[in-house]
């Protein structure tokens, strides 16, 4: 996967690159044009010089051409050549000129200019012919032009780089400022919790059309989420009421029938329906608990006490099963939360353990940095690759005897999570399974202000 990049950095990088390319293009084109013009100008001077000398040579053709040419050449060279070399040929023979050592500056028998390499340096060589067979060759070193050009290139490149760097810094700042509402928007959006969307809305104005559009789509999404959360909450409340009413009836009537009957065979035959009813109650409670995200954590709960209650409830239903459970909760293990949910979670885990093995089950509650409730059995355990799946609602183990609500692990996981804790499944050695519910330990702190005399009466849970 490619690591995501900052939008501001990418855009400013692209911009800086564009600026650099534009600057460099300008440098190249500008330098080329400048150099071309400089060479043309230099050529013009050389040709003018050659032509002037050629005219002189023609006018004085009858005199000793050698001496004349030499004199004129030297004079003119000093005045206007600027480092030019000059040769005078008469019918192919060198008759004068500057610096005789400039080898290779041969007559060329044609007018015009060309570039040549002489003594290891580039020269522009221009020549003018006379009608009497004379030729003036003027060579001008290109080095000067090249040096100027090089300086120009270096200066312009430096300027281009500086501009690009400046632009990079500037545009990144500008972009960052332009994009800063996005950061704020994202902070706003992350602050929203799915369960607490009521009364939460995003500001509408962010100072940029694009971001306003994003914000308003988020807001629309938020209101859809709000509706669905609200519907879910209503559904849970309704379902809770609709389920609890008949369950209350069923459970109460069974209990009453059992306790009022003198007939032992009737009592025994009612044991099954009682158990089924209890399972149904627990399934309903678990489903309702699973649907709840916003659990108010307001009770001080001793996890050891919760575990004990779960075991006691078991004794009431099934003495044989209860005899297999050993509870070890030596000290008080305080957490902040909902005792009903925690009881449901531990009860489900103990039930699960009982269902998957016929051996002993150990329930222990320890109070350390975190509060841990461990339920260990010596049953078949679970395969490591099954752990993730088993935490999903209605998942069942591979064992053919597996039975139960199928909600136990999912519920324990959910309850641990809403309490800020977690559920871990650890395979036992050599076999078995330990479910560990870890919960943050609660420590009473200095109260803020005095205790509230009137507890809030408006709660919609």
């Amino acid at each position, binding site marked *: 996967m490619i690591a995501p990049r900052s939008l501001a950095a990418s855009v400013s990088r692209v911009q800086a690159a564009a600026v650099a390319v534009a600057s460099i293009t300008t440098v190249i084109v500008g330098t080329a044009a400048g150099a071309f013009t400089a060479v043309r100008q230099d050529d013009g001077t050389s040709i003018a010089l050659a032509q002037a000398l050629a005219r002189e040579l023609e006018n004085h053709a009858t005199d000793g051409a050698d001496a004349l040419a030499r004199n004129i050449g030297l004079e003119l060279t000093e005045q206007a050549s600027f480092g030019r070399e000059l040769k005078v040929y008469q019918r192919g023979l060198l008759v004068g000129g500057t610096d005789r050592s400039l080898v290779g500056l041969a007559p060329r028998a044609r007018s015009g200019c060309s570039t040549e390499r002489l003594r290891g340096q580039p020269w522009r060589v221009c020549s003018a012919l006379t009608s009497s067979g004379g030729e003036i060759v003027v060579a001008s070193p290109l080095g000067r032009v090249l040096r100027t050009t090089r300086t120009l290139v270096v200066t312009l490149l430096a300027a281009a780089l500086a501009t690009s760097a400046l632009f990079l810094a500037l545009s990144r700042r500008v972009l960052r400022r332009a994009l800063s509402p996005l950061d704020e928007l994202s902070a706003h959006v992350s602050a929203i919790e799915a369960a607490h969307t009521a009364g939460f809305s995003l500001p509408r104005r962010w100072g940029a059309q694009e971001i306003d559009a994003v914000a308003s789509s988020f807001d629309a999404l938020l209101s859809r989420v709000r509706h669905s959360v609200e519907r879910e909450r209503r559904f849970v409340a309704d379902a809770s009421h609709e389920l609890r009413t008949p369950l209350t009836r069923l459970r109460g009537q069974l209990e009453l029938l059992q306790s*009022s009957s003198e007939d032992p065979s009737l009592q025994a035959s009612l044991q099954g329906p009682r158990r089924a009813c209890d399972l149904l109650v627990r399934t309903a409670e678990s489903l309702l608990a699973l649907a709840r995200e916003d659990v108010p954590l307001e*009770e001080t709960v001793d996890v050891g006490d919760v575990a004990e209650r779960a075991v006691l409830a078991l004794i009431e239903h099934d003495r044989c099963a209860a005899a297999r459970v050993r509870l070890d909760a030596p000290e008080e293990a305080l957490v902040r939360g909902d005792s009903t949910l925690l009881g449901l979670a531990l009860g489900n885990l103990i039930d699960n353990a009982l269902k998957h093995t016929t051996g002993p089950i150990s329930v222990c509650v320890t109070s350390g940095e975190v509060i841990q409730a461990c339920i260990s059995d010596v049953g078949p355990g679970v395969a490591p690759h099954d752990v993730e799946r088993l935490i999903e609602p209605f998942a069942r183990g591979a064992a053919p005897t597996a039975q139960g609500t199928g909600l136990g692990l999912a519920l324990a996981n959910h309850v641990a999570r809403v309490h800020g804790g977690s559920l871990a499944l650890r395979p036992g050695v050599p076999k078995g399974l330990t479910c560990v519910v870890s919960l943050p330990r609660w420590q009473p702190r200095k109260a803020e202000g005095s205790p509230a005399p009137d*507890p809030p009466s408006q709660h919609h849970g």
Partner: protein
Amino acid sequence: MRVLVVEDDAETAEFIARAARSSGMAAEIAGDLAEASWHLEQGLFDVLVLDVMLPDGDGLAFCRELRAAGRPTPILFLSARGTVAARVDGLSAGGDDYLVKPFAVRELVARLRALGRRGAIARPQHLVLGPTSLDLQARRAERAGVEVPITAREWQVLEVLLSRAGRTVAYDDVLEAAWGDVSERARASLEVIVARLRKKLDPSGAQSAIHTVRSLGYRLDLP
């Protein structure tokens, strides 16, 4: 002891009444608030079992009206909502106890008995026991500005003892009201819980309010 059961689900009302009768109480049934008002005008009741949601109104509002009219009859709320907030709502409306559906019949009967025995005494909202101040409605305790972590079970025990303050409450009565169970195991837990509760209410032990009455039970003395 006379119990009025105000519950719109006829079958639920019926088994509650039967359970109450089978443990020696007299029970009447009202299906809605109008019927309940009629019954209350006709005779005296020792305890009211009141469903929170009724077809012709809100049980909490009805309870507030009764209290405003000066009726002190103890009220036990039945509700499908089991949150702490719902319980606080019920108690702050003037209720005396709160039970979440579906409940165990034994527990309901035990609580009815406790309420009936206690009679119509005003239940204090705030209380100071030694160095600790208690808010009984919100179930919060505080000492020197720091919350004292009293667990739900400890509150239950404390409430049972408070309801008969100054008198000895038998072990089994405490167990029945707080555990719904009188086994040896529960009895052992009760001892642990009372010891913890004493320590939490008064760490120095100098002015402990809870006394053990040997081989009988516990007694809580109000200051």
